[in-house]
């Protein structure tokens, strides 16, 4: 349905997005993952025709949207990263205003506004001024506004930032439902791994403007297939144990927590017996040793050497 071809955006000397290639098929939920400043918002601003790329192209049904974005704009719903609502108007007034901006009117408009209020769970609060809403309610309305014209493609830019866990899972469930019930295509941007893991079929990972990995969840986790992540929990850590671990030929990377050490080891290593030996020789009391299934978080750590959230 949509393809990004060598898309780049430069602000002064800095590339916010560099040679991004991506495709989105109808009915998919695509995850775009990356830490703050990775270039996610810039990428989707170009994708949605809001800003012009420095170079590269965006194709919709094999036609560039750069010169004539009208047809494309009609099928896109955009949920911006920041709440783009009139805080002094009520939920309903906001929906009515944006609905009219989308050329809806009369019965169709009120039907659509009702429907969206129902979907985002704000029907009871429709007469309330947005200013008085909680962060989660504002986020939901922010999504609702993008749904008014039944978009085929919903682009969501970090739609769960700064809200409580209930609102968050409500939003995730809603997105999943939209996708299943209406075959709505979704591009979901986030710096939360677990959201993307929960929602998405395919994932793109960006860092510092570059695409660093792309593929299905399984494909991406394959990147880690050569390594196992082992989590060691202890009574009390001592330096001798850490030093012994770091020096041991099997360990690729050591991450130290308060009562926990995570290590990456080659897949075939008999790590358990080695760890027990090291613990004995350094007089350390082990609580548990687990072989963790890799997460996207681990993938990001593996690819960049940095945790996703700093």
């Amino acid at each position, binding site marked *: 349905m949509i393809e990004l071809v060598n898309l780049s955006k430069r602000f002064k000397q800095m590339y916010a997005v560099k040679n991004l290639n991506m495709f989105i098929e109808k009915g998919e939920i695509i995850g775009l993952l990356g830490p703050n400043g990775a270039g996610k918002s*810039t990428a989707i601003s170009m994708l949605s*025709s809001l800003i*012009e790329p420095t170079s590269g192209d965006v194709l919709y049904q094999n036609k560039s949207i750069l010169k004539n974005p*009208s047809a494309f704009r009609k099928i*896109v719903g*955009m949920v911006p990263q920041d709440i783009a609502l*009139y805080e002094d*108007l009520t939920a309903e007034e906001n929906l009515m*205003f944006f609905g009219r901006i989308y*050329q809806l009117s009369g019965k169709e408009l009120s039907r659509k506004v009702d429907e969206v209020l129902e979907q985002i769970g704000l029907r009871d609060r429709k007469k309330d001024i947005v200013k008085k809403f909680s962060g989660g309610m504002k986020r939901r309305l922010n999504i609702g506004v993008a749904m008014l014209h039944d978009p085929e493609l919903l682009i969501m830019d970090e739609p769960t930032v700064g809200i409580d866990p209930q609102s968050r899972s409500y939003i995730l469930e809603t997105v999943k439902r939209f996708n299943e019930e209406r075959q709505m295509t979704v591009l979901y941007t986030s710096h939360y791994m677990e959201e993307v893991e929960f929602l998405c079929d395919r994932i793109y990972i960006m860092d510092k403007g570059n695409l660093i990995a792309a593929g299905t969840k399984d494909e991406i986790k394959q990147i880690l297939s050569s390594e196992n992540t082992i989590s060691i929990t202890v009574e009390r850590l001592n330096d001798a144990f850490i030093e012994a671990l770091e020096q041991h030929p099997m360990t690729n990377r050591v991450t130290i927590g308060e009562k926990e050490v995570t290590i990456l080891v080659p897949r075939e290593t008999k790590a358990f017996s080695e760890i027990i030996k090291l613990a004995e020789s350094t007089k350390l009391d082990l609580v548990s040793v687990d072989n963790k299934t890799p997460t996207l978080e681990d993938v990001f750590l593996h690819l960049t050497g940095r945790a996703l959230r700093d």
Partner: protein
Amino acid sequence: MIWQIIKKQGLLFLRNPQQLLLLIALPIILVMILGTALSGMMNGSSSPLSLKIAFLESEGEEEQVKAFLADVKEQLPVEAFAEIEANLGNMLPVSTIKSVFDSEEVRDFIEVEYLKPSERNEIIKDDSYTAVIEVPKNFSYDLLTTMIVGGTAPTLKVTYNEEKQVGTSIIASFLTQMQNQFTKQNFLAQQGIQLSELAVEEMKAEIVTVNEKNPIEATSYYTIGMVVMNVLFIAGAISYYAFHEKQIGVFNRIILADVSRWVYFTGVFLTGMIFSFIQAIVIFAFSWLVFGISWPDVGLFLLVTVAFSFAVGGLTVFLSALNYKLNSEMITNFFMNIIVILLSVLGGSFFPIGDYVPAIQSMGNMTPNGSGLSAYISILRGENIAAISENLLFLVGFGMIMILIAVLCFPKRGVSA
């Protein structure tokens, strides 16, 4: 679509009563304060401007005149001398000035104290005087002599109080007018024509116009002054809203809905125009109900209001476009805090400054508010469309230039965070 943008702004105003209060109630309160406090001055009665002049004369005019007559008697033919002697009563310069000062019309307006030169130093120190006029020794003798035989005329020595700038400029222009009259008289006398009586009459009339240029009530004047000033705040307020729409991403939403940016632009323009029209009408309606200010020609009144709102609409998109372009509210802030006040002073919203300082009058007419004010006052005075056509043209032209600049500045697409 455009209508939605305007309607939404109406809702936003209604949800912000403090803002409404600022835009509607404040000007009304200002009208009441300024109208009562300054009405005395405007109506020419007890002048709070207190134009006070000290007039210092070192010697009597009569002796000088006698000396003059004695000296010219030999030099002139008998008939000419007889003519001068007969008309001398009308030619005495100091007496003429005094008679102008003492005339009823001027007395309402300028207070003159006749003092001795020995008091000069104290007077100069006293801040209540706007100007000190000193008649040099032999002034009348010298002046009469130049009238008959030519040469350079002596001048009065005038010391202005620099702290009273407005009053100073009034007196300066007053004296310039007198001087012109004497010069004319001087010239005519040399041609053997005697016009002194006429000249003094003419001079009086001119001075009186300074005072009577505003036969309209102070409250009327200040209602208009406050309307044309406060309507400018509408342009600022709406450009704030427009920039806020950019900041929170509503503008992007509108662009993504495939609404042309020119539709949005037109929406902002019309919002500015319509709300400034409404604001003006509300304040004028209030002034009609409370102060009884009614318009002799309602059609012309509406025409000026529309033209003025058009200019304010232009100002609104101009400010909005610059904010968008520079990605900051700086321009609007600057406009609201500084430019509006400057424009208001120049345009005469606080004080009919242009009536006293003609240079400022023409500058004032080059501001949208000053031009609107002039037009409204002309209508109140019962003048017709011809009298305000220049103001109307200026307002429409100003609005169009603002729109043009705004069009050139407005961003091409959506805006990134």
